[in-house]
């Protein structure tokens, strides 16, 4: 790692101030993406501003059909939360399938979505559930938050404070994990909510996206057989040593069918 200063503010105002006063300050959440990247010297920072001391970023609450999860809530906490398990079991299930137990004990929802790895799991849940990302300066719909590979709508010094998830009628997530890292080669989050069916795909493209043609047929009939005749185009999909674009395109329909079956219990 290149050297940096370490800071631990106790409030969001203080954190924002520290970021503003630094040359190239970065927020540190669970550190499970940032620290490996710094260790490889793929990134550097003048200051790391650790959010761990800011109480208001932690915890899970639910009211009026919306579950709100603080940015610093770990994947383990989301997976084990009875509130999340009762309201949106698919979300608890997704969090419990990220990486491994030690990654889940440190990694946070705020860190995962701010990083927007093309193969990360949470972006699929946010887009699938039509969630809202709350930051230090505004609220952004998930559809507008994820803007490209490792890119989000976050501005300089803007900190994610929480994510609000409307409770769907039913939902499920299925991923085909990379056997080494457990990141999604393809992951599909399917949700049936008040405004119809949403199908969010992660791992397959540069960033999470909605499979609109699949949403259309599932709105006609919410069963795996509705997807039988769909052939997803492989144009623009990711291709690497793990899977070809063509294979990923095929996995989108396979994961969708499994997710629909799971959502239908």
């Amino acid at each position, binding site marked *: 790692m290149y050297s940096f200063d370490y800071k631990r503010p106790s409030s969001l105002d203080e954190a924002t101030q520290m970021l503003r006063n630094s040359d190239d300050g970065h927020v540190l959440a669970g*550190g499970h993406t940032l620290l*490996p990247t710094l260790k490889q010297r793929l990134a550097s920072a003048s200051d790391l501003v650790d959010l761990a001391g800011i109480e208001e970023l932690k915890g899970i609450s639910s009211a009026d059909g919306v579950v709100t999860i603080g940015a610093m809530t770990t994947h383990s906490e989301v997976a084990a939360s009875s509130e999340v398990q009762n309201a949106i079991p698919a979300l608890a299930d997704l969090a419990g399938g990220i990486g*491994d137990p030690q*990654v889940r004990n440190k990694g946070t929802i705020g860190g995962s979505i701010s990083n927007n790895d093309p193969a990360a799991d949470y972006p699929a849940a946010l887009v699938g559930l039509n969630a809202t990302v709350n930051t230090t300066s505004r609220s952004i719909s998930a559809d507008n938050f994820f803007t490209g590979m490792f890119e989000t709508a976050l501005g300089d010094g803007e900190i994610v404070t929480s994510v609000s998830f409307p409770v769907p009628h039913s939902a499920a997530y299925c991923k085909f994990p990379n056997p*080494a890292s457990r990141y999604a080669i393809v992951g599909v989050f399917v949700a049936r909510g008040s405004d119809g069916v949403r199908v969010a795909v992660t791992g397959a493209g540069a960033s999470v996206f909605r499979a609109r043609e699949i949403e259309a047929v599932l709105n006609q009939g919410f069963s795996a057989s509705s997807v039988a005749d769909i052939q997803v185009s492989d144009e623009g999909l990711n291709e690497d040593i793990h899977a070809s674009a063509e294979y990923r395109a095929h996995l989108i329909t396979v994961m969708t069918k499994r997710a629909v079956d799971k959502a239908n219990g």
Partner: protein
Amino acid sequence: MSVTVSMIVNGKSVSAEVDPRTLLVDFLRVDQRLTGTHVGCDTSQCGACVVHVNGKSVKSCTMLAAQADGAEVATIESLAIDGQLHPMQEAFRQNHGLQCGFCTPGMIMSALDLVNVNSNPSEREIREWLEGNLCRCTGYHNIVKSIQAGAEAMSEV
């Protein structure tokens, strides 16, 4: 610049001035001379470095010492008391749960976190829990057997 870190390591209060980029694993191995915690990779995947921070298993290669300021840390060295192996250590010994032993401290610290959340894990639950612990020589079969036996022995104490 340096930062002061203070924490409780295996029941003992320790404090030191460190470079902010010091990893917890280096703080434990180099500053505290607790070399039971190992480093097996630089991609946060192997789990040789697993320790407990405030009772939960974490990869100490992917955490700054500064992040553990004020925390309680437990390493493999905390387990045996007066030369008497912890039941989980004894179970690894009895069941051939190790060959070279490089992965073992991480395996055991990870297994103990599993037993904390699930005192009677099934074989499948153990295998799933070990997602973040790699062994390059024993093979997982005897490790899983050891953890099952260790969990059982712990419930009898």
